[in-house]
């Protein structure tokens, strides 16, 4: 009896140990890049490297932010991401709501259309669009890149918003209509407030999606680079501090955003797979 209890205890301890090891596997590389990004520039060139950022310094980050084109690229990235967010919500939310709430002919066909867009590589969309955008004079603009990102994020937005709305019981909206609301009022007063946290999570994720996207960005822009596009194009000619600081600036939003999204991840991704 006692040995069984001991075995259970050991197994539990091992599980915790494993969970911590896996957590370190994820965190350690980020931590080390953080150390590099927050060390003084000359500390980055020392070898063997130190494992804590001492003295702590924002010198390297500042150097990166002051480098040619960086502040403009960050602005561009934010604009593109916000535009993408706006477009996908504007176009995608109604579709997500329709899939969640209505039974109609063609519903499965539409879902299939959405899911099948996953099979399209960004590569095959970007190159011909770049060629066409040049013809239409839309090339090298944050707006056309935002449209491209909208196309990439839209299927995701539709599926996630539909799963968010599906998690709001239909009964609640029906109850609202028996209490004097029309369909739109019922949506506004009941479905929307209840879906808001989930929708916010979907929006944050869309933002990250656009913030991170690099292939379309680098193909569709020349002078109006987004941050990843800029860093990628100067990668083989840039000094190490630039790379490390750039890498850290690019991944920093993820650290913050994932914290807010974590509860909704399964809602967002889990049901998308159905």
């Amino acid at each position: 009896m006692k040995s069984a209890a001991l075995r259970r205890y050991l197994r539990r301890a091992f599980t915790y140990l494993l969970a911590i090891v896996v957590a370190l596997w994820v965190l350690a590389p980020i931590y080390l890049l953080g150390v590099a990004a927050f060390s003084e520039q000359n500390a980055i060139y020392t070898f063997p490297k130190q494992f804590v950022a001492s003295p702590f310094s924002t010198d390297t980050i500042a150097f990166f932010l002051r480098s040619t084109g960086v502040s403009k690229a960050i602005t561009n990235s934010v604009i593109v991401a916000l535009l993408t967010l706006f477009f996908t919500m504007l176009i995608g939310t109604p579709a997500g709501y329709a899939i969640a709430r209505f039974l109609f002919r063609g519903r499965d066909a539409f879902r299939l259309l959405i899911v099948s867009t996953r099979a399209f590589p960004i590569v095959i969309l970007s190159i011909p669009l770049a060629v066409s955008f040049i013809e239409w004079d839309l090339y090298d603009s944050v707006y056309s890149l935002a449209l491209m990102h909208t196309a990439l994020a839209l299927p995701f937005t539709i599926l996630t918003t539909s799963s968010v709305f599906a998690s709001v019981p239909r009964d609640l909206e029906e109850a609202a209509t028996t209490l004097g609301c029309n369909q739109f009022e019922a949506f506004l007063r009941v479905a929307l407030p209840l879906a808001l946290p989930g929708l916010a999570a979907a929006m944050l994720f869309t933002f990250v999606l656009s913030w991170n996207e690099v292939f379309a960005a680098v193909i569709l822009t020349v002078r109006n680079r987004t941050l990843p596009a800029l860093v990628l194009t100067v990668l083989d000619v840039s000094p190490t501090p630039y790379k490390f600081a750039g890498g850290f600036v690019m991944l920093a939003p993820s650290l913050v955003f994932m914290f807010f999204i974590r509860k909704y991840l399964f809602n967002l991704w889990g049901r998308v797979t159905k």
Partner: protein
Amino acid sequence: MAEIKLETVRKTYGKTIATRDVSLTIHDREFMVLLGPSGCGKTTLLRGIAGLDQIDSGRIFIGDHDVTDLPPRQRRIAMVFQSYAVFPHLTVYENVAFGLRMQRIADVDVKKRVRSAAELLHITDLLERYPAQVSGGQRQRVAVARAIAVQAEVLLMDEPLSNLDALLRLEMRAELKRLLKEVNSTVVYVTHDQVEALSLGDRIAVMKDGAILQCDTPLKVYDYPATQFVGSFIGNPPMNFLTGQVKVDGSSTTISAGGGTFKPSPLIQSALRDSASILLGIRAENIEASATAVGGALSGSVLVVEPLGSHNLLTVKVGAEYVKVNAHADVVFQPDQTIWLKLAADKIRWIDRQSGVAVA
């Protein structure tokens, strides 16, 4: 004045027909129960009255208005949902006030009416809380209060007690009965629980496969089931059925069933044809069991004895058929014992075996 009139209401979902041209009139201030097993179309009918689903054909009238094409909010109804559908993002107070706010009623009056609805349901203490902070039973009260507060002429209830535990359900049932006497609405109440139906309804409409089999007062439905299904769906245990055969010999008509011979009342004799197959229906409490032979009784052997406290429930094998009998708790019967069953003659119902419909 809010009489509800359904005229040949039909609703289909794909290929399945949920209601088959149902017609029904529910009187002003009547408590009508729609009773039936799941999938019988009772909820479909209720949602049709509410306007939550559009019916395929037929008309629905509430009062003098044809509401068939009106959205729910224009039908002057209120509804209590099976899941309660209490809005989780609003306080109990705002939930109860929701319908009143939609009617743009002045704040002072909203306050008054929320108060009185809350008092009726004993939830005054909960008004400032959110639904997640109250128990399931209390949430149910909120749902009822919300429906009552709008003082609609028609109150629709979709299995409102089915999510409560047994004890709470019993308590709430009695309270609903008291409450709904006070509110003067026409009530349509959907349930699959026959006890609820018997205890609450002014009339019960028993449904199966999208059609109403019988619509009558609880006692009538219990005592005079229109079909074999109604007899077996209502009552616990279900009504017993023994197969029998009609024998017409000149002017005398007799029926042999379960090894005995019965004389049907003169009223139904004309409806019986010679050698027709027929069912004898009798409820467990209308059978008297005795350990000694009695004239005119059926003999059978005891299979199972289930003590239920107030009485013992016997399963008795009569010929090749089984009969449930309520026996006095203080008379002891043993399995395999041969006993005699005396059926109360005036409680026997005759049902045509082929159609399953009562002979009248």
